[in-house]
């Protein structure tokens, strides 16, 4: 692993990484990275663990290793306005719909271990995500501190998982595999 690069929340404003000739706003990169907004991207799964910067101190210092910078540089980024300094993330599964919202089982994406559960209100779910609220639906909930134009504020974000529409090739592949398995398996 290469030596970490020390940056601070102030110094990274508008910083660009140009190693692979792509312009990149690191604020948005981290927002993306932390929130996993592109969870279906397999490249994201290969990124190094982020314990180092989760433990960033209260002054907003972030330690970035070169491989992380490079990894971030390789992914395309959606728009996101805030830069998060400390975040806890969960993978939630709705277990019950209630009058005001829903209850969910939560897997700790930072530390693993035991699960948790909590109550969520419909008002916390974005308009776009509301149709996705149903028993068994999967969502990401992140809670952290955002640096919004210099002022730090707590922020809770819920985003529902959108599974990609599988292509006919994907489905054909599953069908082929099932057929092959059907021929190979023996049943009593």
């Amino acid at each position, binding site marked *: 692993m290469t030596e970490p690069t020390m940056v601070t929340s102030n110094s990274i404003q508008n910083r660009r990484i140009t190693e692979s000739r792509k312009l990149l706003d690191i604020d948005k990169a981290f927002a993306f990275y932390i929130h996993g907004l592109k969870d279906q991207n397999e490249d994201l799964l290969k990124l190094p663990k982020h314990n180092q910067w989760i*433990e960033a101190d*209260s002054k907003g210092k972030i330690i970035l290793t070169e491989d992380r910078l490079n990894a971030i540089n390789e992914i395309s980024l959606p728009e996101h306005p805030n830069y998060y300094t*400390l975040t*806890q993330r969960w*993978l939630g*599964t709705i*277990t019950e719909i209630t009058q005001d919202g829903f209850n969910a*089982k*939560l*897997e*700790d994406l930072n*530390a*693993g*271990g*035991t*699960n*948790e*559960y*909590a*109550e969520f209100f419909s008002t916390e779910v974005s308009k776009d995500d509301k149709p996705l609220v*149903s*028993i*068994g*639906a*999967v969502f990401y909930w992140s*809670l*952290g*501190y955002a640096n919004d134009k210099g002022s730090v504020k*707590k922020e*809770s974000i819920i985003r529902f998982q959108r*599974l*990609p*529409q*599988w292509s006919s090739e*994907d*489905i054909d592949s*599953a*069908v082929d*595999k*099932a*057929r092959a*398995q*059907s021929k*190979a*398996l*023996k*049943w*009593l």
Partner: protein
Amino acid sequence: MVIEQFDLPLNNIVEITLIGTAGGYGESIVIHLGDQNWAVVDSCKDPHTGLSLPLDYLNSIGVDVANQVKLIVCTHWHNDHIKGIANLFAECKQSDFCFAPSTDVDKFLLFVQLEQLKKSDSQSTTEFAKCLEIAETRGKPIIRAMQDRTILNLGDDSSKIYSLSPSDATLKAYDIEISSLIDKVSSMGRIISEGPNSKSVALLLTFGKHSAILGADLEISDNKFEGWINILDNSKVISPNNKASFFKIPHHGSSNGYEIRVWEELLTDTAIGKLTPYNKSKLPRDEMIAVYSNHTKHLYATSSSTSGPKSKKRDRSIEKAIKDARPSLQELRFSKGIIRSRIDYTIDEADWLVDTYGPAYHVNP
């Protein structure tokens, strides 16, 4: 008695050990059928270590899992009954694998493969898919569980295991459900299975003059040809002259798994009842504990059904953020409870000896 040290049972001892976890992480039953022949029903994991708890138990007492585990039964695909079962099956190299697919096996296999397109390890069908791959590699037949089927037979005078469910009616309904689920795949890219409990595999164990019933999560159905009513009315393998002295109470002691006729017609007056609570749903309810206590003085649970609210330890600033943003957040606390029952099955009048470990306890001493 509290277990201080686990040990292997002697060859003439049948052991039925319920491993259950507080917090809804699951339950599993490890069975010694005599002469170092073992079977395992379901699996669950320790969330901290990721270990399959029945596999961990078998290894801890020195069972040669590769050769001595003869049968693994997956009663249904809920996470609290299936997590870690693929790892267990992989280690138990001589074991048969038994579960209840729909009658149309091709459709079932397609359903499992389509589920894998989600590329997530969180869905329980991933465990199924891995088990299917292991069975395919070994070339050993998978045993389909169904009503009144012998799924393990160690000899004329030795122990046997029968599946009591799912019934033909349930399997027929399952076919329709699988078709419906497959139809949803292309339109939604998301499959939510409905009611796996109804397809649960309940089991009858016989050993010498003794018998035991393991209720899985099987429920009472509106259809008399499904669930417990079907078993009571139509089972050909249950003998009214050989009532069971051991009952794994179905579905965490929930009222939808309770049928008075089970206790009156299938179980002895002194039958032992064991259950695993499901804390998140606060199962079993106090009123059901009272109901079960009326049927038996030997009611055991792997842990208490209630646990005080508790939050996980985290960075203090995150704890503060959680307190402000989500005060309802609570940890599903994990603790492993074990209820071990042993009986000398060569003696007709023998009684069960019940021991507990961890938070497991005798509910109505």
